[in-house]
């Protein structure tokens, strides 16, 4: 993979009549993890939506490889994948179909054996034919993670990817992030849980004014 760069200049975000943050600057390089931390309601989700281009900043800019993301929407969106509080998993489709359509919508061809392998790796082998409606909270989250893995994007933007995951899945997720970074990817993630990320190149970003006592990285 060649080198990529996500950079943010003087970013400000306001919701309603509240200024959540302003003058935010950072840049993220290939192989780095940006861990966005902060208390509830400090603006982590809002920041992530700014980075994806779904929301527009109050002031400042977000750049991808030097150019504004709004100017090169297609290139940027092809290189990025976002997982929000909502999963983007269709209740009426089973996990495999969910992945098929997710791939199709991203304009990629679907590799069925690989999709099934990914789902099995995420511990969903018993649920392959069930509509996602009947899956448990954590299982649905896992389906969403599978589509993340299949996408093969450079930049992952993850909003609390660990919610609802059991301890095994959390460990798995840590491994996946580590692999992705080693392979030259970039990750922006928020979380309230402790993460084990030994040997990972981590940048911390504190959003808002609530101190987070322990660094969520050992």
């Amino acid at each position: 993979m060649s080198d990529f760069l996500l950079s943010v200049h003087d970013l400000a975000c306001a919701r309603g009549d509240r200024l959540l943050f302003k003058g935010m600057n950072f840049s993220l390089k290939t192989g780095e993890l940006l861990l966005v931390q902060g208390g509830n309601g400090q603006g982590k989700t809002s920041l992530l939506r700014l980075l994806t281009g779904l929301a527009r900043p109050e002031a400042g800019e977000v750049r991808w490889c030097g150019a504004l993301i709004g100017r090169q929407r297609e290139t940027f969106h092809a290189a990025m994948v976002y997982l929000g509080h909502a999963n983007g998993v269709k209740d009426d489709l089973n996990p495999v179909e969910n992945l098929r359509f997710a791939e199709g919508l991203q304009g990629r061809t679907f590799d069925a054996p690989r999709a099934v392998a990914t789902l099995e790796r995420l511990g969903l082998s018993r649920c392959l034919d069930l509509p996602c409606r009947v899956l448990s909270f954590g299982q649905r989250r896992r389906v969403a993670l599978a589509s993340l893995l299949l996408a093969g994007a450079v930049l992952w933007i993850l909003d609390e990817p660990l919610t609802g995951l059991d301890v095994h899945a959390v460990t798995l997720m840590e491994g996946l992030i580590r692999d992705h970074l080693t392979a030259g990817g970039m990750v922006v993630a928020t979380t309230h849980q402790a993460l084990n990320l030994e040997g990972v190149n981590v940048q911390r970003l504190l959003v808002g004014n609530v101190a987070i006592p322990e660094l969520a990285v050992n």
Partner: protein
Amino acid sequence: MHRFVLAVLRRDLTLATRRRGDWLIAQFFFVMVASLFPLGVGPEPAMLARIGPGVLWVAATLASLLSLSRLFADDHRDGSLEHMVLSPEPTVLLVLGKSLAHWLIYGIPLLLVAPVLGIQFNLSWEAIWVLELSLLLGTPILSLLGGVGAALTLGLRGGGVLLTLLILPLYVPALIFGAGAVDGVMAGTGAEAHLSLLGAFFVLSLMIAPWIASAALRVSLE
């Protein structure tokens, strides 16, 4: 480019078939609303034939209108709309694909039952034929305009009724031309003028609506 439209289309059609009853239900709604009128108005055949085209057009409008509120809403709620908008393909194509799917799922079935209702309302065969033609041109207009309304009202409480409120006024020309065409053929004044106006309106909406809808979609998601 068209691969993306096809992907959207296939996905929505699959989702529709997954709940087998879904498209049938809109059709039955059509039949039911059309049947309510004789119940309310009384059974005189001559009068029913007179109001038939109008009733059928209004019923068809309402039937495919009802399903419009779910055009983007389901995908919005579970987060998959964001994923689709974040795809590298242009949002206009997304909107086009979804409108097309809506028409295939909810518009086409209406065309299939309309003749039966026409018979029930004592329309002549010629009038039924023109009714079909006018619905064929008119229902896609509704799916296209509906895309705009659905995008604008996304995530608002009471979106369904609000959507109706926004879309119906825009849709009135189609209704007038469509019902007018059938009335024309029944009155012997011919249907061509009305049908060609309807066709022009269709082309116009096809060219404008998807762009507005995709802009509205981005605004609603912000």
